[in-house]
């Protein structure tokens, strides 16, 4: 075992990402505004992470993301208790822990912020999974509010015109739904502006992620998990554009002055699947102790992966393709192609796959992707089974041992 050099605190301080403070400020402000929506007379919509949020911004509706909330529940290690509560309500332990914690938090006002503000309506887009539809049905019954389902047919081999037409029609059904629940007309001019901001933010976010192509990487996937918050929740607003402009500048400055996420980056790894929210710090430190940086991941790039398909001049139309063909809504074969592309792009020496009990669309097929990676790139792959929010299924000692063994392989490959 190599000894970890104890760095002076100023060194640690230098390595900290300064924009974090601004990010926290924005998110706090956002949740305060959302929780005060009743007083300010604004409407609140709950929406899935892959859902078309831009029209909500146009309508001045505050979008709230139960998935983001559940991630916070996971990060604060409140997942086990809430999941337990959901199980008492009859929800099987095998269901997605985002859904379980959200359903329980709604009933108990639990979690780190005392529950989410109640929704006026729900918007569910199934481009990430079928789970969200069942979950939102349950919440629509619980809160007794309308539910709009934005149905994006899965792409096994191609996205055919008939599916494209179906999704296109739903954009107008969605707008009509919003006009009804909000009681006023949709402003198409404002849509142009919101669309432009959304595309700009997504480009900036991708640029932030791309800074890790640099060796050493100025940030890691664990940082990306944190800074992802805004592109998910508030894309289409000015503040997101400003924030990612700032973050990008900071990353470029770090590159210029050689500040890296991991002190002695020697091994570059790719992460697949959702984070293990309650273990990000431990995982990050465990890999760093091996001089390994998780430089990129398949998860955080999902919010910018389709940006080249979006068009500022006709955002609504380009949403059809943009929202339908995101990473999780395509075949395993296509996902494998993306992963190979990322291995090349970021120069990865290994891949860590989180086999996530909660998320079947993300996880089923990983074994095939693993084989494809090994065959096509001859890169070692570590598979760890865990859950993103339910900390009851995580075995630190077991996973620690497997990481050590895996890093041994990565190390010998690299020196061999």
């Amino acid at each position, binding site marked *: 075992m190599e000894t970890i050099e104890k760095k002076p605190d100023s060194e640690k301080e230098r390595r900290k990402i300064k924009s974090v403070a601004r990010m926290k400020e924005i998110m706090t402000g956002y949740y305060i505004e959302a929780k005060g929506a009743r007083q300010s007379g604004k409407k609140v919509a709950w929406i899935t992470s892959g859902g078309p949020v831009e029209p909500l911004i146009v309508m001045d509706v505050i979008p709230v993301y139960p998935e983001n909330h559940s991630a916070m529940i996971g990060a604060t290690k409140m997942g086990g208790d809430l999941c337990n509560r959901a199980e008492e*309500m*009859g*929800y*099987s332990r*095998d*269901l*997605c822990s985002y*859904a379980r914690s959200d359903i329980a938090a709604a009933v108990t006002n639990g979690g780190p912020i005392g529950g989410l503000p109640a929704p006026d309506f729900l918007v569910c887009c*199934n481009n990430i*999974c*079928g*789970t969200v*539809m*069942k*979950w939102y*049905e*349950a919440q*629509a*019954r619980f809160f007794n509010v309308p*539910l709009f*389902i934005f*149905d994006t*047919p*899965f*792409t*096994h*081999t191609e996205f*055919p015109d*008939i*599916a494209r*037409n*179906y999704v296109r*029609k*739903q954009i107008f*059904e969605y707008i009509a739904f919003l006009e009804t629940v909000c009681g006023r007309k949709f402003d198409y001019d404002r849509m142009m502006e919101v669309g432009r901001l959304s595309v700009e933010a997504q480009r900036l976010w991708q640029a932030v992620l791309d800074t890790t192509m640099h060796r050493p990487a100025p940030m890691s996937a664990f940082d990306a998990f944190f800074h992802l918050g805004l592109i998910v929740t508030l894309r289409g607003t000015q503040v997101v554009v400003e924030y990612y402009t700032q973050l990008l500048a900071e990353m470029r400055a770090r590159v210029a002055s050689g500040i890296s996420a991991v002190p002695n980056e020697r091994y570059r790894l790719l992460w697949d699947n959702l984070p293990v929210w309650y273990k990000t710090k431990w995982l990050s430190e465990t890999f760093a102790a091996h001089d390994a940086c998780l430089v990129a991941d398949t998860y955080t790039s999902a919010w910018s992966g389709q940006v080249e398909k979006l068009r500022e001049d006709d955002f609504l139309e380009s949403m059809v393709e943009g929202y339908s063909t995101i990473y999780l809504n395509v*075949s*395993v*074969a296509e996902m494998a192609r993306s992963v190979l592309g990322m291995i090349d792009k970021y120069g990865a020496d290994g891949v860590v796959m989180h*086999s996530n*009990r909660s998320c*079947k*669309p993300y*996880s*089923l*097929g*990983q*074994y*095939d992707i693993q084989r494809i990676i090994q065959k096509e790139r001859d890169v070692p792959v570590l598979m760890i*089974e865990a859950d993103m929010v339910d900390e009851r299924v995580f075995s630190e000692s077991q996973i620690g041992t497997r990481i050590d063994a895996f890093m041994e392989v990565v190390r010998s490959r690299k020196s061999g």
Partner: protein
Amino acid sequence: MNAIEDIRRVARDPIEYARRYTNETGVRALGYFCSYTPEEIIHAAGILPVRLFGFGKKIVRADAHLQSYSCSLVRSALELGLSGELDFLGGMVFPHTCDSIQRLSDIYRMNIPFGFFEDIVLPVKLNSESAREYIVNLLAAFTASIERGFSVTVSDEALRRSLVLYNEIRDHLGALYRLRSRHPRLCSGADLHDVVSASMVMDRTGLAALLADLVGELSARAEGLGDDDARKRIILSGGICSHPDVYGIIEDAGGAVVWDDLCTGTRYFEGALDTTRPPLEAIAHRYVDTRVTCPAKHRSLTDRADSLAAMATEHRADGVVFLLLKFCDPHAFDYPHLKERLDREGVPSMLVEIEDTLPPAGQLMTRFEAFVESLG
């Protein structure tokens, strides 16, 4: 009862039946896993639609592709494909169902060579005009793809005849179910389970005749029967049931299954095709308007609960047994809501979670006995 003997044989080994049938007749067969498969189109193309279960197979090869937290249907379905037992099929068709089936299709496509392989990416919501139109377009694309893949022509006339035949089959199945609901002693639960299972596999023309005989036979026997059945009337609710033993255990515990809410039950045959419509529209209409929805689809927030509650009333159910496959998300999500609704209607229910195999018979027996007893 020759009809029932024939049916039992098919239900015990549907793959063997289909293999022999295709060998003997030269008719090609298409495999599928979901009750939203437009069998009517496949049949009209002169192809045999074969529903696959695969339960009871030892999992050897599928573990290299699927995590332990995928449902046993998906695992055994993959095992079946990887084992080579399906090589006799002319192809596979996967209607979009749940997240697991969606990935199963990907894994099949990547690992098992089939001449014909088609996904029908149905909409998940069935309550809009655009979804209905999309289904019609999908069905047209599927028809064209079958025509190309099998070098056949599917005429409008053939489709119409197929629709009439399917109405007949589904009518018969409905009639059998209603007879059994009136007189649970008429035929065992296991037998009726076999009838439905075999119906998804057998040559459909022969099947229609067989079912007609069976309906005739049972109606005749029903004539003399009184209303002296003291057993508790049970409805089974869940996804698929491929455990015929469960019926016997419930019967031994003093209950009788009188109706069900299963993919391998009423969800397969309920809802008539409106033959006055153009054929593909009629199929879409059945999916959208007349059959009971599956939990992987959305029609309204309460339609499944409404329909289960209505079943319980119509068939005078004393209790409902939820038979849920472990790791099945769509059904597990609906369960608390369905249970709560039944509670409100005063219909007691119990939950049995099953994997590839049923829980040990003794244990199940004890639980069913306790449940039946609690029904007073």
